[in-house]
């Protein structure tokens, strides 16, 4: 035993063992159980452990599943697009236009100092029927009765999540902007580019890795988000995670829940890979 610890490979194994064990027990094992469940069926008396594709067939044919899955991807896509579009100018400002970088980065993380749930509830207070927004609009006489399209729909979900994810988009984009050698920008100017052309021909292509990282960090957890849609989404804003929760909870159909989880995972993976390929190819086309 002592001999093994002296070799390089042995030391490596020993060092990685705690993490491997942790990941093995808490990620790989549950995933295995999930896969197993997805091939079983719920008979409402007991779990029938005969292997079958029945759950997958149901997931594939049920219009509700397809609808929620597509809606989840669409909402996550909208959240990602909105967050990255809003984060890019902020990251640009911090990287190029200010010397107080540390202060700005600190300010951006401040929302994280409060609980995520609290922040979602705050949006409820702002967007609600008697919320801040409606009270303000009413008192200013801009509207005569409270607006009802603010809360309990996809819009509220996108707004809430775009706010919550902002730092996750700002940081990777900031890092990729910060890495750009300033003389590259001067070289572009020297070769005749205006500031706008310079941005599209040099800055943007060089920050594509940052944009991809930000997009994946936001898109992947958003597809499976459960809290925000159930709090501010209403019936219109329900997403696939809410359906999965129903299967594991009230409906008590764990095998179908497991199948839906795996289908969601596969869909997210597929869309994410497609996005990376497209974004990279697009970046290569800029000359």
């Amino acid at each position, binding site marked *: 035993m002592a001999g093994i610890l002296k070799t390089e490979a042995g030391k490596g194994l020993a060092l990685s063992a705690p993490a491997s064990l942790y990941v093995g027990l808490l990620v790989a094992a549950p995933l295995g159980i999930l896969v197993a469940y997805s091939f079983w069926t719920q008979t409402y008396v007991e779990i029938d452990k005969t292997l079958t594709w029945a759950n997958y067939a149901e997931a594939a044919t049920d219009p509700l599943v397809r609808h929620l899955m597509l809606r989840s991807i669409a909402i996550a896509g909208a959240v990602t697009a909105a967050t990255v579009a809003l984060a890019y100018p902020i990251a640009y400002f911090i990287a190029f236009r200010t010397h107080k970088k540390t202060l700005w980065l600190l300010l951006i993380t401040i929302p994280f100092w409060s609980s995520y749930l609290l922040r979602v509830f705050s949006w409820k207070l702002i967007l609600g029927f008697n919320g801040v927004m409606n009270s303000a609009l009413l008192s200013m006489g801009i509207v005569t009765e409270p607006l009802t399209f603010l809360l309990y729909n996809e819009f509220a979900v996108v707004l809430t999540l775009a706010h919550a994810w902002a730092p996750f988009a700002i940081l990777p984009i900031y890092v990729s902007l910060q890495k750009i050698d300033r003389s590259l920008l001067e070289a572009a*100017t*020297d070769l005749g580019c205006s500031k706008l052309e310079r941005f599209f021909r040099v800055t943007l292509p060089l920050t594509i890795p940052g944009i991809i990282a930000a997009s994946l960090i936001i898109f992947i957890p958003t597809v499976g988000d459960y809290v925000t849609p159930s709090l501010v989404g209403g019936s219109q804003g329900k997403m696939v995670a809410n359906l999965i929760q129903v299967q594991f909870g009230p409906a008590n159909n764990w095998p179908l829940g497991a199948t839906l989880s795996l289908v969601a995972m596969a869909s997210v993976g597929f869309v994410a890979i497609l996005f990376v390929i497209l974004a990279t190819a697009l970046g290569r086309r800029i*000359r």
Partner: protein
Amino acid sequence: MTTQNIIEISGVEKRFGTFVAVRDLNLELKEGEFFSLLGPSGCGKTTALRMIAGFQDHDEGTIRIGGQDMAHIPANKRPANMVFQSYAIFPHLNVGDNVAFGLRKLKLTKAGINDRVAEALEMVELGGLQSRKATELSGGQRQRVALARALVMRPKVLLLDEPLSALDKNLREAMQFEMRRLQQKLGITFVMVTHDQYEAMTMSDRIGVMFKGQLKQVDKPEVLYARPCSREVAAFIGGMNFLDAAVTGEADGKLQAQVQGFGPLTIDVNSNVAQRGPQLLAGIRPEQLEISAQKPEGYDGYLQGTVTNAAFYGENVHYHVTADGLQQPIAVSVPNYFHTVDHKQGDPVWLGVQNASVIDLGTREA
């Protein structure tokens, strides 16, 4: 000379807060000239170059390129292109697209762009490397791509910011000759910033020496070396022995002076010097001195001393010689003919100097 001025800089000043980076810069550069701005780091030479390029505004004075005032012309509209110190090769583009970067702004056909890119790469001996990735280039190749990318724009003026400082010694020397050849072939005005005196001397038609934001002297390399205008310019370019001298008479452009250690000598008046009084600073280049164990024949001044240091440099041998009454040992450099160091430490030697080798450096400052 009837060649026209391509760049005219008059009374230009640049301040950063209270710090004056460039002070009262006046300079006229001719078409087809290779001009170098030489000086130690922080002397303002890069700031001067960046003002010509348009990356920095000037606070006072005017800069004209091709007769046109550049005051309100942004960097992207100026008829000058730059080779950056870091080369600034776009990492997301291949060699061909890097060189074509500026051309895509012009109204050219695809074939027209390709032809000019091929021609430019051929010129810097990178023909056929269009599809090579920018990240796969060596230092020398990056330098050539940067050169091609600027030259392909056919600028009136090419600005070079320490273009060779990132290369190793052998490559640097090869590139010095190649850039000089290219400049002569194309007839474009090159303005180079460098802190390397040898680089400036081997490549340039004229050199401007800058210290602390001020242009001290502008001259051909050989004039700059033979008749520097001050002690600091003389010390920055090549080696120099500084000796105190007392002027005893002046006639027909010649000074009679008692030179410390060497006795009475006749020195040519240096017209580049601003002030001259009875207390003179005389300079002698180390390679202009004769060193010998016996008193050498036919010299105008002699010094008897002792070798304190002897060093073999390969192409030449360096000695330090002291004598009574000298504050500093005198440096002597002799060519290496027989691969021998003829004088050892402690040996008594004679130094001989010709009148013509002594340089008048103006009034000696106390």
